[in-house]
């Protein structure tokens, strides 16, 4: 009889809050509002819901079921499913490692900007402040490093310290405990921010721009691809996070019910973010007498250029509004960051048999050294932007595509996984689940891949120098695949898979 020694969540609510904390991240705040606005406004709801129900939630159920049935981090879970598939798991581990190194940097910026909100220290020109004073960009060739930026480095060290302390404390006492504080706090802070934003002058103009439906957009294929892309990137599927988190569930766990809650909770926060962000953008458009479309509406520039302008224009309570906004970014980022690093930690633990503390120190130590060495420099934002773009497209999305193709088509594993999910959940999966994963998701992800690859070969991403794209972009994305395969091939002294599975693909004796 195997020793049951795998860590477990304390409560179902704890697992759900951690899963929601992982899914709700920076993308919910700075990506969704713009994507919806650009792709039909209010009409975007339709493709968005279709994507949630035909790809997002089915993928969440798939990852939960893999993690729960095979009870392991991605490399171990895929290894148990089929030995060669372990390479997919290791690929996801490398992807998570790369993302962790730069994700922490954005949280560090948000920490500093929460501080800058007190007294609006960015002055009259937040754009120049962010690029020149804060990041110390001097108009040099993107990719060349000339100086180290201590103002980014020290909050970055603090972010890593917080993440590692949480992970050192374990699944229940660290991750679950942190998310039980983070998620209610995030909902509270962001809720207050949205209510305040709704009472700003011009808020209704912003909401008009966000919600007015352009029904003609629904006939455009790119709008539907954008909806699937948003659902895919927003739900934290494709990283192996949900596999890892589900591996700490008890034997009796409502996998489909949990996926419904996590999927709708993530979308609920996105909708709230859309309302808050566009109400605020409506305000700045009115107060600066500019068309809304000419503002910075998404991503890093929305957060670190547009929002400082909004905060500076506030009639009263500006500092508080800044603290709410950047505080929300920090919390949303930390809960996602914790889950990303946990994938790597859990995989190292499962493979080597190391206990939690040395595994966290090994993983956290190496990732934080790279993170602190590379990104607090005057080319940090370029490394970050390029690595993020390529690892998203040719890491997360490509891994998602490979997983559905391998699991559904090659291993024909969906009926077995469906049986497992049905045996432990209250809602039964039907043929629709196998169709969404076996047909709809691979077709859409395949199309997204083709679409983005063809753009890549037509023009340089953001016009960056080819050398930068080849190293920080292609080099990182292709390197992750190669490294994933190599890690799966490495002979190890022992396979530390001695915690029992909840499925029965192999016998107990077969694995020992």
């Amino acid at each position, binding site marked *: *009889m*195997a020793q*049951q020694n795998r860590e477990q969540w304390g409560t*179902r609510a704890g697992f759900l809050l951690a899963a929601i904390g992982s899914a709700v991240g920076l993308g919910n705040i700075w990506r969704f509002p713009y994507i919806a606005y650009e792709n039909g*406004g*209010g*009409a975007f*709801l339709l493709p968005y*819901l279709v994507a949630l129900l035909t790809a997002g939630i089915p993928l969440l159920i798939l990852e939960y079921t893999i993690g729960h049935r095979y009870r392991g981090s991605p490399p171990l879970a895929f290894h148990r499913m089929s030995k060669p598939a372990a390479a997919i798991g290791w690929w996801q581990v490398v992807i998570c490692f790369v993302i962790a190194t730069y994700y922490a940097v954005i949280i560090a910026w948000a920490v500093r900007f929460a501080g800058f909100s007190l007294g609006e220290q960015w002055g009259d020109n937040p754009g120049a402040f962010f690029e020149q004073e804060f990041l110390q960009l001097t108009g040099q060739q993107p990719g060349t490093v000339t100086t180290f930026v201590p103002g980014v480095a020290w909050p970055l060290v603090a972010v890593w310290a917080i993440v590692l302390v949480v992970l050192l404390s374990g699944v229940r006492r660290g991750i679950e405990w942190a998310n039980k504080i983070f998620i209610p706090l995030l909902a509270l802070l962001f809720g207050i921010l949205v209510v305040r934003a709704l009472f700003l002058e011009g808020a*209704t103009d912003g*909401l*008009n721009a*966000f*919600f*007015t*439906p352009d029904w003609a957009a629904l006939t455009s294929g790119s709008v539907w691809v954008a909806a699937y892309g948003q659902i895919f990137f927003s739900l934290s599927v494709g990283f192996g996070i949900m596999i890892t988190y589900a591996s700490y569930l*008890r*034997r*009796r*766990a*409502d996998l489909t*019910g*949990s996926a*419904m*809650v996590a*999927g*709708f*909770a993530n*979308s*609920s926060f996105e*909708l709230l973010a859309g*309302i808050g962000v566009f109400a605020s953008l409506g305000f700045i458009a009115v107060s600066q007498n500019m068309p809304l479309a000419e503002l910075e509406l998404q991503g890093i520039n929305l957060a670190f250029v547009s929002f400082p302008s909004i905060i500076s224009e506030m009639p009263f309570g500006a500092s508080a509004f800044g603290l709410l906004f950047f505080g929300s970014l920090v919390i949303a980022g930390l809960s996602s960051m914790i889950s990303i690093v946990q994938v790597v930690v859990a995989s190292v633990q499962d493979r080597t048999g190391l206990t939690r503390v040395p595994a966290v120190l090994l993983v956290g130590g190496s990732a934080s050294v790279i993170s602190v060495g590379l990104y607090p420099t005057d080319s940090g934002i370029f490394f970050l932007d390029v690595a993020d773009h390529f690892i998203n497209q040719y890491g997360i999305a490509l891994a998602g595509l490979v997983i559905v193709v391998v699991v559904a088509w090659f291993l024909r594993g969906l009926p077995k996984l469906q049986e497992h999910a049905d045996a432990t959940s*209250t*809602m039964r999966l039907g043929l629709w689940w196998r169709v969404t994963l076996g047909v709809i998701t691979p077709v859409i992800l395949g199309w997204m891949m083709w679409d983005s690859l063809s753009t890549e070969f037509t023009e340089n991403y953001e016009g960056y120098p080819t050398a930068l794209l080849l190293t920080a972009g292609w080099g990182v994305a292709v390197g992750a695949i190669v490294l994933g395969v190599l890690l799966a091939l490495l002979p190890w002294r022992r396979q530390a898979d001695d915690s*029992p599975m909840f499925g029965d693909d192999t016998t107990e004796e077969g694995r020992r």
Partner: protein
Amino acid sequence: MSTSAIVMLVVSIIIIWGGLATAVLHLLRHPEEPESHDPE
């Protein structure tokens, strides 16, 4: 706000937040069974 924007705001809220409420209620109606005799 225009009527169509208000309608889409309300519809989005009802479907997405309503979906969350329904999913949470569904889970609450099916509490986890205690694992007193986990067969290993």
